[in-house]
C-alpha cells in the first residue's frame, strides 16, 4: 500500500445519474435523521461505479453535500478504504491477490504477466482497457492463485492462461469467470476423490433428504 492521493487530473463536476440519485436517496433514508453520514460508504461506492471505476474529487464533494458532511470527513473515508480508486482504472481493472497462499501458488508469475501485458501497477494501458493492482487476500485461497477483474473472480490461474485471459478481455472475446483449469468451483482438482462408490450412508441420506425438501444443492449435479 502506498500514500493515496487524489488524481491530479480531475473532471469539472460530478452528478449522480437520475437512477443512482434515487437509489442514493433511498440509502440515506435507511438511517435515522441526523445520522445520514452513515450512508457515505455506499454512496461513494455507487459514485465510483458510475464514474468508470474511480472516484473523482467532485464526487467527494457531491457526496459530502448530499450527506451534510464536511469535505474532509468524506476525504478521510475515501483515502482510508483501498477499494475506492482515486485515479482512473482500466475498463477491466485487475486486482491481483499477492497474499501468501496465492503467492505460494505462483502469484509472482501472474504479476510478471501483468507487467508484461499491462505495465506497472496503477497504470492504465493506452487503449484504456486494462490496469492492475496487487491487493491483499480476496478470500479465494482454495483456488489460488487468483485475480478479481471488475466484479468477477478468475481462479486457478497460470501465467499462460492468464495472459490469454487478458488478451481475450482486451479484444472483446467472451471469458468465463471462475476456475480456469476446468475445476468445478472449489471441488477437488480432477474430479471427486472420495465417496466414489456411492455407499456412504449417513451423508448421502442427508443429501437426499434436503433434496427432497426442494432446497437446491450448491454445485451438485
Amino acid at each position, binding site marked *: *500500500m502506498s500514500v493515496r492521493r487524489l488524481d491530479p487530473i480531475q473532471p469539472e463536476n460530478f452528478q449522480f445519474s437520475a437512477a443512482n440519485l434515487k437509489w442514493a436517496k433511498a440509502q440515506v433514508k435507511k438511517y435515522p435523521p441526523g445520522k445520514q453520514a452513515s450512508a457515505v460508504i455506499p454512496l461513494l461506492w455507487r459514485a465510483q461505479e458510475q464514474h468508470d471505476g474511480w472516484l473523482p*474529487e467532485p464526487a467527494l464533494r457531491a457526496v459530502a453535500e448530499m450527506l451534510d458532511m464536511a469535505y474532509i470527513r468524506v476525504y478521510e473515508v475515501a483515502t482510508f478504504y483501498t477499494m475506492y480508486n482515486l485515479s482512473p482504472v482500466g475498463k477491466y481493472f485487475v486486482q491481483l491477490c499477492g497474499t501468501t497462499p496465492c503467492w505460494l501458488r505462483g502469484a509472482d508469475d501472474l504479476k510478471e504477466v501483468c507487467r508484461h501485458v499491462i505495465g506497472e501497477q496503477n497504470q492504465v494501458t493506452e487503449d484504456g482497457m486494462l490496469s492492475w493492482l496487487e491487493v491483499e487476500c480476496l478470500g479465494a485461497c482454495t483456488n489460488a492463485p487468483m485475480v478479481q477483474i471488475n466484479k468477477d473472480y478468475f481462479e486457478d490461474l497460470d501465467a499462460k492462461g492468464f495472459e490469454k485471459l487478458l488478451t481475450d478481455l482486451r479484444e472483446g472475446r467472451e471469458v468465463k469467470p471462475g476456475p480456469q483449469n476446468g475445476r468445478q468451483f472449489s471441488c477437488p482438482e480432477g474430479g471427486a476423490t472420495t465417496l466414489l462408490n456411492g455407499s456412504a450412508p449417513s451423508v448421502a441420506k442427508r443429501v437426499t433428504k434436503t433434496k427432497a425438501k426442494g432446497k437446491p444443492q450448491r454445485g451438485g449435479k
Partner: protein
Amino acid sequence: MPKLIIDGAEIEVENGITLIQACEQAGVEIPRFCYHERLSIAGNCRMCLVEVKGMPKPIASCALGVNDLRPGPNGELPEIHTKSPTVKKAREGVMEFLLINHPLDCPICDQGGECDLQDQAMAYGVDGSRFTENKRAVEDKNIGPLIKTIMTRCIHCTRCVRFMTEVAGVEELGLAGRGEDAEITTYLERGMMSEMSGNVIDLCPVGALTSKPYAFAARPWELRKTESIDVMDAMGANIRVDTRGREVMRILPRNHDDINEEWISDKSRFIWDGLRTQRLDQPLIRVRGKLRPASWDEAFGAIARKLKRTKGARIAALAGDLAGAEEMFALKDLMKRLGSPNIDCRQDGAAINPARGRGGYLFNSGLGGIDEADALLLIGCNPRAEATVLNARIRRRWRTRQLKVGLIGREADLSYRYDYIGAGPQSLADVASGKHAFAKVLKSAKRPMLILGAAALAHTGGGAVMTLAARLAGMTGMVSGTWNGFNVLHHAASRVAGLDMGFLPAAGGLDTQAILKNAKAGKLDAVFLLGADEIDMTSLGSAFVIYQGTHGDAGAHRADVILPGAAYTEKSAIYVNTEGRPQMTGQAAFPPGDAREDWSIIRALSAVLGKTLDWDTLSEVRGAIFAAHPHLALIDEVVPDENFDLNKLSRGPSRFGKQPFRRAVDQFYLTNPIARASAIMGELSAMMADETSGATGTDG
C-alpha cells in the same frame, strides 16, 4: 463511588471518570499523547497502558471508565499497577514503535525543549532502537500562515483533528489514508479558516505543528515567562508572555477554567509582531503640520501652553479600548482637576448607564454560566468575533444538545446552529412581547440567558435595546435566586474598568458622540485621547489633540502632541473583564525608547500643568483606586452586583430606530492599533476577506 487500588493505595473516585484521571487523582503520572482532558477520547497512541489485575493484556487507561472495572472473584477491589515490569515493558514497546517513524531532528525542531515525545522518550523509553529499515517521510502540508507543518514528525495522535472539529467547530483537519501512510491534512490543503487554529500548536505533543511566525526564533529555555492577561477582547484570557531580552517572542495561553480554559484566539496569540512595529517610542509635537521628535519636557510644555489658557469645559478626554485601569483613573483625576466634565470610556457610544447598577453592564452569569444555561438569546452579538473563546464555550454547551440559541442581529457562521430571529431591535421587541416563538423557548427554559453585544448597545436606540432586553429578562425569568442570565458582552478590554471607575461624563459633561460633535463644531479646544483610535478623527475638527498611546495609528496621525505609552505587555495594569473580574497584567518587557508607563506620564503631565496628582508610585495609584473602588482590589474574583435590579433597567428609554444592528467587529483581525500594526494580522485579514468574498466565512 467506585473504589480501586492504584499501586497498592486504595482510592475512592467519582463516577464516570476514566482510569487515567483516577491515576492522576491518586498522584500517579501516566504518560500520554492522544489523551487530552478537554477533547474526546481517541485511545490511539497506546502510551497510557497500565496493568489491571485479571485482565490478560495491558489496558489503555484513557479509554477505560472506572465504573467498568470488575471486582476480583472474592469481591476484592480492582487493582491497577502502573509501575509493574509489564507496564514498563509495554511503555517501552509503544515508545519504540512511536519513534520508529519519528525523525531524529530534535536539534532543528522548534518543539525541542518542550516536546512531550522528547520528555516521555527520556522518561519511559529505552536508549536505543532496533529499527534498521528506512523511516517514512511525509509531505508537509500548507494549512495557513500561522501553522508550520513538518508532518514527518507526526505521531497521529489526532489531537489537532479533534480540537478543530469539537472545540473550534471548523471541520477542516482530518486524518487521511491509513496505517503507516496516514497523514494529517486539510481538504485539498486549504488553509484553516478558524480564529482558534493556533491552539493546535500547543496541543501537538510533537513538533509536527509549530508556530510559523515564531519558527526558529528562540528556544524555550531562553525565554523569560511572564504571566499576564490578554486585552484583545473583554474576556481577559489568561496568557503567558514569553520574552527574550526586550522582545516579546510569543504568547501562550494559561489555564483558567472560568475564563478561557486553555485556549486563546489567534489574535491574542499572534499579536506580538504588532508590538514591534509602528511603535511610538518618543514624544512628538506637530509643528507647521508635521510631527517632529521632541523631549518629554517640550511635549509637556506644548500641552501646558495650550491647556493653561483653555477653560475646563472646553477640554475633553476619551479612553481607548486597551487602556488599563491605572491610567484611566489618573486621567479622570486630572480632568477633574482641570475642571472638565467631558470624559468617556465608551468609544463606540454604547448606551450604558452605570447609574442603573453595575449589573447593567456585566456578564452577570459569569462566563462559566454558559455551561449551565439551556436557552440563549444573542442580541446584536457575534461571539465568534467578539469573544472567540467564549464562542467555543457556547459551542460546547450546544453540542450537549442542552442549549437552544437564538440570534438577533447580523447572521453569521457561529459554528453552531441557532434560530435566526431578526436583524434589529424590532425583532427583540417581538420576542419581549411574546410574539416571536423564541420567547416560549426562553420561558420554558430553566436557566435562560441573553447576551447583549457591543453592537446592540452602540445602536442608535441602544438605550431602548437595553430596556427591552431587561423587560425580556424579567418576563422569561432570567433572574431568579442565584441565577442571573442578564449578560452584557463587551468587546473593549478597558470598558468595564472604565465604567466601574466612572470614566464617564460628569454632571453636565459630554459623552463620546457629544464630544465629537462639539469638537467638529469648534466648541471644544482640546481633546485628550488615551489610546482612543476607533473614533472618526475627522470629527475632531480643529481641536488640539493630545494622543497618548503605543502605535502610530489613527489617533497619532491626527495628534498635535504624542505621548508614547506602554503596551499591555510592557506594564502591570488592571483590566476588568466582561464578568467584572479584575485581573492584572504582568510587565514582560520594557516600553520602547522613551515610552513610559501610562499612569506615570499622566502623573508627570499633571505636575507640569500645576495640578499635581496625589501619588508617585504604582502602588500608591493602586492604593487610591482600591480605596475608591474596593472591588477592584480583589484580583481574579468576581464581585456580583448585590443590588441587581431588572426593574431599574427596564425603566429606560423605549424608542428605537428601525436600522438593523451592525457588526461590532468588522474585521476580526484588525480591531485595535496593535493588531493593525501586525503583519500577521494583516495577512490573516486579507485571507479572511478572500474567503468571505465567497460568502462562506465567519461574517457570512
